[in-house]
């Protein structure tokens, strides 16, 4: 039954992807790609990857859609249609088919999906499953691998996010608007939602709960799907919602920009700092075991701190990026 459902979902994915490429309405394409991400997330869930499913839903369907929509508001909602422009282009098609064909050629010797004897299930991964209870002592093996066994990857990931944050700030942060708008106009534009009573009341009521949920995801990542990244995204979503309802200026008043910039930097520094402290205490970089008397407690402490660092940087960057887009007036 799951198999049939999986096949159905996957087929749907392909159909949606084709629709995205064919659509000339960019607004529709962005919406479809949100659906694409949601379908993808369901697929991941079926494949027993709960953490990934949660992240894909939050990032692909949530953050990415918001970003694309903000960008569309500043650019154009339609692809320019050229005479005969709908025709397929042959060279890219050949390249794409060659690539896809090569991969399909390879698949015939791939291990069958779900086969417990596949090499990936024989080497390295079983070690994680066997040793996590003893070495890290938390139920969520994904978090254990993410935070500790491959903590360095996650440090890198945080810095990727950090780079994107300062990058967007550097690219968009400088000249605020090309078209001068009066403060009244800006005010009007930004407070458009403020006069719609129902969304406002409902939305305002939701913001604290979303933040609470973010905290739960943040600190419960060791036991269930979730962690710093997802929590950061959710917390940012709460503030973004608040900004949309109350106006960007009030959003910025709630979390001022200087604070955002410090958050962006300090989260990454916190993560790295934990690693350096481990070094100072005589371990390797990111060897949390030395942080406490009992190694596994050290691991707990380390994971807690680095997840916090991830959460701070991620929410900081997402808000920075959102503000950077929102501040620019469309022409």
């Amino acid at each position, binding site marked *: 039954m799951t198999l049939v459902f999986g096949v159905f979902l996957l087929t749907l994915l392909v159909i949606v992807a084709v629709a995205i490429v064919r659509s000339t309405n960019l607004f529709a394409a962005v919406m479809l790609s949100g659906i694409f991400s949601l379908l993808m997330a369901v697929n991941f869930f079926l494949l027993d990857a709960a953490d990934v499913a949660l992240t894909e839903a939050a990032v692909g369907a949530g953050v990415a859609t918001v970003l694309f929509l903000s960008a569309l508001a500043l650019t154009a909602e339609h692809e320019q249609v050229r005479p005969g422009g709908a025709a397929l282009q042959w060279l890219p098609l050949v390249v794409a088919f060659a690539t896809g064909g090569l991969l399909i050629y*390879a698949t015939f010797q791939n291990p069958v999906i779900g086969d417990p004897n596949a090499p990936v299930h024989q080497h390295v991964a079983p070690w994680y499953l066997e040793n996590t209870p003893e070495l890290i002592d938390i139920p969520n093996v994904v978090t254990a691998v993410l935070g500790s066994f491959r903590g360095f990857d996650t440090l890198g990931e945080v*810095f*990727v996010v950090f780079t994107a944050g300062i990058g967007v700030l550097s690219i968009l942060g400088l000249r605020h608007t090309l078209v001068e708008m009066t403060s009244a106009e800006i005010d009007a534009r930004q407070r458009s939602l403020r006069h719609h009573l129902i969304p406002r009341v409902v939305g305002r009521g939701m913001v604290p709960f979303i933040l609470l949920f973010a905290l739960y995801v943040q600190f419960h990542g060791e036991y269930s799907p979730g962690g710093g990244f997802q929590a950061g995204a959710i917390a940012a979503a709460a503030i973004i919602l608040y900004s949309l309802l109350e106006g960007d200026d009030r959003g910025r008043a709630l979390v001022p920009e200087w604070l955002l910039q410090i958050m962006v930097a300090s989260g990454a520094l916190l993560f790295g700092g934990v690693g350096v402290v481990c070094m100072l205490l005589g371990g390797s970089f990111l060897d949390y075991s030395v942080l406490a008397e009992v190694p596994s407690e050290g691991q707990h402490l380390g994971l807690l701190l680095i997840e916090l660092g991830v959460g701070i940087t991620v929410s900081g960057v997402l808000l920075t990026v959102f503000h950077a887009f929102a501040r620019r007036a469309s022409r």
Partner: protein
Amino acid sequence: MNLDAHLPILQIIVPLMTAPVVSLLRVPSLPWAAATVTSGLAFAVAVTLTGQVLAGGPMSYALGGWVPPYGIELYVDHFSALLLLIITGASTVALAFGKASLDQEVGHERAPMFYAAWLLVVAGLCGIVATGDAFNLFVFLEISSLATYVLIASAPDRRALMATFRYLILGTVGATFYLIGVGLIYMMTGTLNLADMTDRIAEVGELRPVLVAAGFITVGLALKAAMFPLHAWMPNAYTFAPHAATAFLAACSTKAAIYVLIRFDLTVFLPHLSDHAEQVSGFFIPLAVLAFLIGSAVAVFERNLKRMLGYSSVAQIGYILLGLALLSPLALTGAIVHLFNHALMKSALFMAVACLAFRAGSVQLPDLAGCGRAMPLTMGAFVLAGLSMIGVPLTAGFVSKWYLILACLEYGPLGYVLAGGILVSSLLAVAYVWKVVEAAYFQPRPEGARELREAPPAMLAVLWLVALGNVWFGIDTDLTLGLAEQAAATLLGDGS
């Protein structure tokens, strides 16, 4: 805490963790100063690390205290040490050189972000080179790429934006191809550690996915390395980036990708895939030859100085790939030493161009006519580095070409043709360097052109340091050749 044992990780985290701090500095010039000092510190780490590797052999570092392949491993041997020297060295000189030029182009408001991104590029490239884990490599590849996009987009010219976008698209496609390749190998071996991968590929029965993985990794990295014919993003990216950033990026950003390419092909695939040697040679030799012939030929007709040097880089990458493709110790030594020497000559050339642009406000050759008289020191350094690029004896460029040509002659009848190709390409290099020399020295300043004077002393000092480095490493080859020979021997150790 025994600092020596931690050197591999310090190499990465020194620039990496300074970046957030730099992004918060709001005092003018302070971000620059902090970045320069940090970069210098990273260079010092690289030098110490190289000393240790030379004395005690390769170093391994288990992150988090988890033994590989379960944890991520850093692995620094002679080859990576050489690359670390290139990356941190190029960054340090470009920063020390570029203060005035970058102030002019990037401005103070953007400076904290810009210099933070610069340090992230350094950290990312160092990470790529130092890590022993295939996926960790991807993460650092992305850090360095994203930060590079920020550097390029900081230039004032609007065409920089389009160049950034193209680079971003192609760079991401390249990195994703790499990721697909790594995924396929992981599927067949269950490991991500490069050394472990080498061992376990030997036991894999079904080779198709591994073969396809080799293809994807090669193409993906070739994109990142701007290998002909996948170089489309590179000349414009170099042309429109801030001048001092070009001097840094041209020296080392493609080098890291080539490093990974060599490492993967020679240590992971070559020992266990039958016919892989023939495939590598058959695939790379024609592309390498086309690269240096076409790259040099296009450079001859290019009037934008920076784009001309960009196409010359396409050609130089061709030489390096040829050294890889011949698969002999001599050729590989030539290729690896050329990684270093090319960094030397290109950073000197781009710095000289930055000086010219700083005063003349243009990098178009007609606008620079007659600049030799007003800026003799700048042009002198340009000529010196140009000679190195041509491969004149006593310069660094000669050393690598010498090795490559000897390797070609050793290769047999086809090798003679290849050697001929290298010489033709060198002649073309003479032509395009000469074009600049003639415009600078033997043509009058155009009517109404901007009055020129010599670049600021701080810029000239660093420029000449690197230009003279071209001579130094053309004569004293102990360090570069020593590392390269050792690296080549290790890479081919159980290969051929």
